[in-house]
C-alpha cells in the first residue's frame, strides 16, 4: 500500500533528502530575471515516481507560459519534517504536498499553513470553473485553518474498500456483491463451506486489523464517533452502543474461521501478495486504493481488480460513508512567494493536467469529471455516492491523538484479532486504557 511504501522508504528518504539537488525547471534563458518571479516547491514525491513525472511536466509547462521559475526539490515522504523545521527559521518553501493527515499533524497543528480560500474561489487555468467547484467540500471538512479556510488543495484521493478478483467467477462477487452485513456473513459462509478462508489480512500491521473495526464502528456509529472517543478523556464515548455492536460484528469474523490461516504470523506483504497470486484460498482484501498498484506485480495472470463498499448494517448511522483521504498541496505560513504558489495550484487543477494523475499515475483524482483508472472505477462510484459523507483513514484519530492510536487502539486491536479479547473485552479495554492514558498524559 502506498503509505507503507512511502514509509518503507523512510530511512532512505531521509538520506536522499540531504543529497537531493534542486532541479531548476527548464525555463528559457534568463527566465529567472523575467517579471514572472519564482517559487520554491518541496515535494513528497521522489525522482522517477509516476506522480513526480506528471508534476514535472506541469511545472515545465507552467514556467513556459507564466515565466515563473519553479525551484523544485523531490524530497520524498519525509518532506514535511524539513518544512516544519524551516517554519521556525522563517524561510519555508512556498509550496509543498503530502497526505492530508500528515499536513494536519506536521504543519497545521502549529499554525504552519495558509488558508487557501482565495485559491478555491479562483478560476482554474484554462477553464471557466473555479477550484471550489470541482473539489467535493466534504473532503476538506477536517482541513480548515484557524480562519476557517481549507488549507489543502487535494489532487489525489485515497481510501479503503473491499477488493476482489472479478475474473474469478466462482466467488460471485462481480455479479452480486453483498450489500448488507447479513448478506456478507452469508457469503462468507458459502465460501467457508467450500473450504476457503475468504479474508486475506496482513495481521502484523495493526492498522490493517483496525481497518475492519474502524469500518464497522463507522457503519454503526457514523463518521467522527471513533475520532471523538479517541480524544475523550472520560472514556464515556465508548459507552455508545455502536462500539459494542461493531465489536460483535468483527468478533464474528475473527472467531468464525473466515480469516486466512497464520494471518498474524507472517510479515507484510506476504498475505496480500498471496491473495493476489491466488496462493491462499482467499477472496477479499480490505485495503487502500493503492492495492491494485501494490499487489499488481504479484497478481495471478488475468486478475481483474474490482471493489465493493464495506457492507451496511441495520440501523447504522454511517451506512453511506466512504473512506476518502487526500494527498494535496499546502502553502506553508510565511511563504515568500505564496501568490506564485497559488497560481501553480490553479494551473495544475486543470482537467487535462490533473488527468495525468489518473492516466499516468493510476490514481483517483478528486475531480468527478476525470475518469478513474479501470481498477478504481468501483471506488470512484463509492466515493461519488458518498456525497460529502467522508471519513479519513482511521477516522483521523491518528492525526488528533497519535499516542492513543499507537498505545491504546492498535494494541487493543491486536489482542482482539489474536483472540485474547472478546467483543465486550475489546470495548472495555479501549475505555479503560483511554482513561488511563489521559490521566497520565
Amino acid at each position: 500500500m502506498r503509505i507503507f511504501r512511502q514509509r518503507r522508504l523512510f530511512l532512505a528518504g531521509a538520506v536522499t533528502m540531504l543529497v537531493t539537488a534542486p532541479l531548476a525547471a527548464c525555463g528559457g534563458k534568463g527566465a529567472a530575471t523575467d517579471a514572472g518571479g519564482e517559487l520554491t516547491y518541496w515535494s513528497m514525491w521522489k525522482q522517477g515516481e509516476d506522480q513526480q513525472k506528471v508534476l514535472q511536466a506541469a511545472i515545465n509547462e507552467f514556467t513556459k507560459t507564466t515565466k515563473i521559475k519553479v525551484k523544485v526539490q523531490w524530497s520524498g515522504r519525509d518532506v514535511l519534517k524539513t518544512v516544519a523545521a524551516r517554519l521556525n527559521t522563517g524561510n519555508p518553501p512556498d509550496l509543498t504536498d503530502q497526505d492530508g493527515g500528515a499536513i494536519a499533524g506536521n504543519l497545521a497543528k502549529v499554525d504552519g499553513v495558509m488558508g487557501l480560500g482565495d485559491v478555491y474561489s479562483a478560476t482554474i487555468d484554462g477553464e471557466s470553473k473555479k477550484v471550489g467547484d470541482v473539489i467535493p467540500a466534504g473532503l476538506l471538512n477536517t482541513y480548515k485553518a484557524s480562519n476557517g479556510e481549507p488549507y489543502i488543495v487535494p489532487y489525489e484521493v485515497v481510501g479503503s474498500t473491499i477488493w476482489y478478483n472479478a475474473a474469478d467467477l466462482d466467488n460471485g462477487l462481480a455479479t452480486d456483491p453483498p450489500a448488507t452485513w447479513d448478506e456478507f456473513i452469508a457469503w462468507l459462509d458459502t465460501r467457508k463451506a467450500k473450504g476457503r478462508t475468504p479474508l486475506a489480512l496482513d495481521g502484523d500491521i495493526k492498522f490493517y486489523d483496525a481497518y475492519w473495526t474502524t469500518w464497522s464502528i463507522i457503519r454503526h456509529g457514523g463518521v467522527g464517533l471513533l475520532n471523538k472517543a479517541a480524544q475523550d478523556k472520560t472514556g464515556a464515548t465508548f459507552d455508545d452502543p455502536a462500539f459494542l455492536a461493531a465489536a460483535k460484528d468483527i468478533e464474528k469474523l475473527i472467531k468464525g474461521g473466515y480469516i486466512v490461516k497464520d494471518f498474524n504470523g507472517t510479515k507484510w506483504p506476504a498475505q496480500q501478495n498471496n491473495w493476489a497470486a491466488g496462493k491462499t484460498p482467499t477472496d477479499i482484501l480490505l485495503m487502500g486504493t493503492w492495492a491494485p498498484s501494490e499487489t499488481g506485480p504479484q497478481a495471478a495472470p488475468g486478475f481483474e481488480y474490482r471493489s465493493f463498499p464495506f457492507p451496511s448494517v441495520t440501523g447504522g448511522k454511517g451506512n453511506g460513508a466512504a473512506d476518502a483521504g487526500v494527498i494535496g498541496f499546502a502553502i506553508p505560513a510565511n511563504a515568500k512567494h505564496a501568490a506564485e504558489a497559488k497560481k501553480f495550484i490553479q494551473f495544475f487543477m486543470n482537467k487535462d493536467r490533473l488527468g495525468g494523475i489518473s492516466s499516468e499515475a493510476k490514481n483517483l483524482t478528486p475531480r468527478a469529471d476525470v475518469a478513474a483508472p479501470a481498477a478504481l472505477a468501483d471506488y470512484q462510484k463509492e466515493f461519488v455516492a458518498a456525497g460529502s459523507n467522508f471519513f479519513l483513514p482511521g477516522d483521523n484519530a491518528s492525526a488528533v491523538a497519535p499516542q492513543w492510536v499507537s498505545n491504546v487502539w492498535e494494541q487493543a486491536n491486536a489482542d482482539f484479532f489474536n483472540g485474547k479479547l472478546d467483543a465486550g473485552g475489546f470495548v472495555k479495554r479501549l475505555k479503560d486504557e483511554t482513561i488511563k492514558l489521559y490521566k497520565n498524559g
Partner: protein
Amino acid sequence: MTDNIASGGAATAAQTARSSRRSAPSKQVGALSRQRSKLYWPFIAPALVVYLALFFGPALAGFWISFQSWRGSGDQMQFVGTRNYVRLWNDTAFMTAFGNSMKILVICGVVIFVLAFLISAVLREMRFRKGLQALLFLPYIISPIAIGVGLGLLLDPNGLFNTGLRGIGLSSLAKPWLSPDRLFATILIGIVWVTTGFYVMLLMAGADRIPGYFYEDSQLAGANKFQQWWYVTLPLSWDVIAISAVLWVINSLKIFEFVYAFTGTTDAPPEQARTVPIYQFVMTMGGRNPAYQMGYGSAMGVVMVALVVVLVVLVRRVMRREAVTY
C-alpha cells in the same frame, strides 16, 4: 607486559629509551615542556570545540528539553518541570519497553557470554579458526535491516525454517515464529545470533595474547580443558572480558534497528516488542503519525543515560580484579 618475560630484545630497547630520556639535560626538558604547554591549547582547542558543540551541547540541550513540553522545531517550548518523568513512571507502555530492554540486557547477555566463552574455547583448538571466526562475525557486519527482512522471510509460517523442520520430520517443532506471543522470544534469539560473533572476536583477541607456555605448563600439571580455561584463560583475559561486559551493557540498551526491521513496518512495532529506544522513536518522530513529544522522548533519553552510567559503574566495580601482568 615486557618486564618479566622472554621478549628480551624489546624490553632492553624500551629500557634504553627510557634511560636515555632520563639522562637528557634538564634545561632542554624545561624548554621542551614550555614549548609543549604553549602548543597545548592550539592543539586541544579544535577537538574540544567540536566535542562541546556536537556532543556536550546537544546532550545538555536534551536534558533541558526533558523538562519541557515541545513539539520540535517550530514550536514554543513550555516548561513543565518533572512532569515528563512522572509520566514515564506511570506509563505502562514505557514500563513494558523498559522491561524488554532489561530482558535483552540480562537474558541475551547471559546467553551471549556463555556462548562466546564456549565458542572461543572450542575455536582455540580448531583448524581454520580464522575462517570460522570470520564466519561467526559475519552477522554483525550485515545491515540489521537486511537481517530483519531476511529473518522475516525465513521464519514465515511456510518459510525456509519451518519447511526445513518439516522436511526432517520435526513438524511438531514448526511454529508460527512471528506470531504475537512468540515475537519477543524470536527477537531475543535473533539478537543472540547477530551479536555473539562480535564478543567471540573480543574474547579471542584477549585470549590470543596469552603465551602458549601457560597452557603447556598447565597441561603438564594435568589440567583438563575446563581447568585450563578456568585457571589460565579466564584470569589472563579478565580485562578484555570486563570491557566486553561494559560494551554489552551500552549496546544492548541501544538496540533499535534490529527490532524495527524485524517487526516489519514503519507503523509502531507492537508493545510486546518495543525497547526503550523504539518507544522513544514512537513518541517523537516515528510511526504513521508521529506524536512529536520531544520533551517526553528526551526524558526517556535521560533515564537511559542515567541507567547506562549506573550499570557501567556497577559492572566495573563487580569485575574489578588485580590486573594480572604477564
